[in-house]
């Protein structure tokens, strides 16, 4: 009796499970109304990457930029775009995170664990209701990106073909463009859950 197909299936299931447990899988974007602001909520979103976490644990700040886009349908051109920046730092003595939204407006909180810091950052991203049509359906997409850190380099010229290859690899390693996107909808202002 040939057991290979069964073993193959078992391994494929394991691989799929492993991919499922990777951060970011199964994230959803929700919205709720609070006064004249629409707040975003994504409880499963874990955008702080391993690289960012290492930088934070080295006592250095990490900035994530978030762009919220509002569009009439899932694939249409955004009608409104708002950009926010969240600055994270990690208290190396208390082993707790501080997060601050630097613009527009400013707010901050400290003594947070990693999940709470990320959650608070996302919750601080708001859309003014004035920019939305009350009865029209809309979609919200949230793009996030870890801002480039100022990177020092040796300044060495890469003149050889190997150097050029290495430069391609190494530049990407030193200046990570860690991005992600979430989309949710359709929402209607009148149907949004109020706080």
């Amino acid at each position, binding site marked *: 009796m040939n*057991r*290979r197909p069964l*073993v*193959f299936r078992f*391994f494929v299931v*394991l*691989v799929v499970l*492993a*991919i499922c*447990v*990777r*951060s970011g899988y199964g994230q959803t974007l929700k919205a709720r109304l609070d006064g004249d602001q629409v707040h975003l909520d994504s409880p499963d979103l874990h955008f702080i990457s*391993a690289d960012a976490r290492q930088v934070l644990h*080295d*006592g*250095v*700040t990490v900035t994530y930029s978030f762009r919220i886009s509002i569009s009439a349908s899932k694939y249409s051109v955004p009608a409104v775009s708002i950009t926010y920046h969240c*600055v994270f*730092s*990690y*208290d*190396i*003595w208390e082993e707790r995170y*501080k997060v*601050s*939204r*630097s613009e527009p407006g*400013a*707010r*901050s909180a*400290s003594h947070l664990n990693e999940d709470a810091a990320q959650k608070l950052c996302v919750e601080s991203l708001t859309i003014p209701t004035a920019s939305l049509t009350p009865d029209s359906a809309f979609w919200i997409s949230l793009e996030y990106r870890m801002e480039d850190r*100022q990177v*020092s*380099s*040796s*300044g*060495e010229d890469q003149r050889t073909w190997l150097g050029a*290859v*290495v430069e391609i*690899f*190494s530049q*990407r*390693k030193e200046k*990570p463009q860690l991005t992600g996107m979430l989309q949710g909808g359709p929402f209607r202002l009148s149907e949004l859950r109020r706080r």
Partner: protein
Amino acid sequence: MPKRVILLIGFLAIAAALYAQQATIEKVELSGIVEDRLSANLRDALRRLEGQPYDSQSADQIAQRIQSELPDYVATPTTAPGAQPNRVRLIYSVAHNINSRYLVEAVELRAIDRSKVSGALWEEMQKMVGHPVNDAVADRLKDRLVMEFKKSDLHVTRSVIRGDQPQHVKIIYQGHSTNSFSFSFGSGSYHSKQKFSGKLTLGYSRFDVIGVAADLMNNSNELMERYAGYRGGIWAEQKRVRFSVNYSSLRAQWSPATQQAAGNGASSPLYRLRDTIEPSAKITISPAVHLTLGVAATQLQMQSPTLHFISTLRAIGNIEYRHSSKSQKNVFDGNYELHVAGHTLGGDAVYTRNLLNQNYKFSPNPASKVPLGATNGLAVSFELGRISGNAPMFDRFSLGNVDTLLGWNKYDISPLGASRMAYGSVGYLTKYLSVWFETGSVWDPDQPRVLRKSVSLRVPLGTALHLNGPARIVLDVVSPSMGIPIRGSHANPMFAIGGGN
């Protein structure tokens, strides 16, 4: 009673002296932001502090006001000596980084030659000591450091670590060479029945993203054969994926017991040479989970009945994980590996090999300040293996070497290896001695299962002798072990150096 009076008088005298020497604020400075970002009222309040006696409570209140006006910042007051005696400069450090509330205790260079750093730059770095962490200044000095080492192929990173005093930190400038060469000796062991094993590795990497490695090896511990030869490979890493291609050419040597069991007929599974080329990709699914997928093509020079070649082509998958509790007291790791050969892949061998390995370690004091291995702990592991089909000797299972069932000899247990394997071990580790109980069995489907047990002792020499640094590591690696098989008679111990559980 007189003692209390003396203490009270002493306390009053010190308080009076401190009061008399209370410093006057010479100047108030703002670091990290421009003053215009504060309200006019707050700017006035800052100016009014000048000429006043320094009072930490008042300074903290102003810091609170700065934070309330700039809620995304952390404001920390600190003092520096003024131009005149008994005068201080009051500095407010305003920054996003929450660590800016800690004072810099020291600035250190690591993997950077201090003698090649200019005096002026070193002096600037040391000026950060005693002040709150200022990211802008620290980064600017890092750039100056990079400029000074521009010709010497050095990449520099900066980090902040805990200081030796509470609420203090150290700023570390760490050098990373663009070109990295390594030379190491690994997998070294000695078994009283199976003799020496070891591997010399020479490696070169550039920017830690591309590299080559070459191994010279001679190993009798890992497989049923003693193999000797070389392996060379190239790797490249980008973000979450590491690609590698390895080629190895190994000569096999068989024990008399294995040769006798195999016979000289056409069905003998023994080979002389084993050449393998193996491209693979290791994918980091999360920091704790890695998946490796690859293909390995092996050509074997068989020695019976006449010299001839056969080939195997197998797909290889491996998934591994590591999880530790927040306190680092409980650490779990393990992997599952699958080899599938033959059929649509081609080759002369058709088989499937499954291997599951799980480990758990408990350390009640996992603090990093205690040298690794110097704490008590408990380690539990188990392995399960199963082969269906006709696997070549290098993929068959064995137990009874330096790492497993120490006290038994694998050539006595199963000279041709086996297609089934179950193994478990429990170890108690102390600073001076570790004790292991091991049990396991290897068998083929048509053979009876015999469960073998052994007890082994290992003395971590470097740790036991309270050595530090490389001497401790080297001596721990070459630490002696003794394994005693648990059997009715002839329980002769076996000795080993290196390896171990």
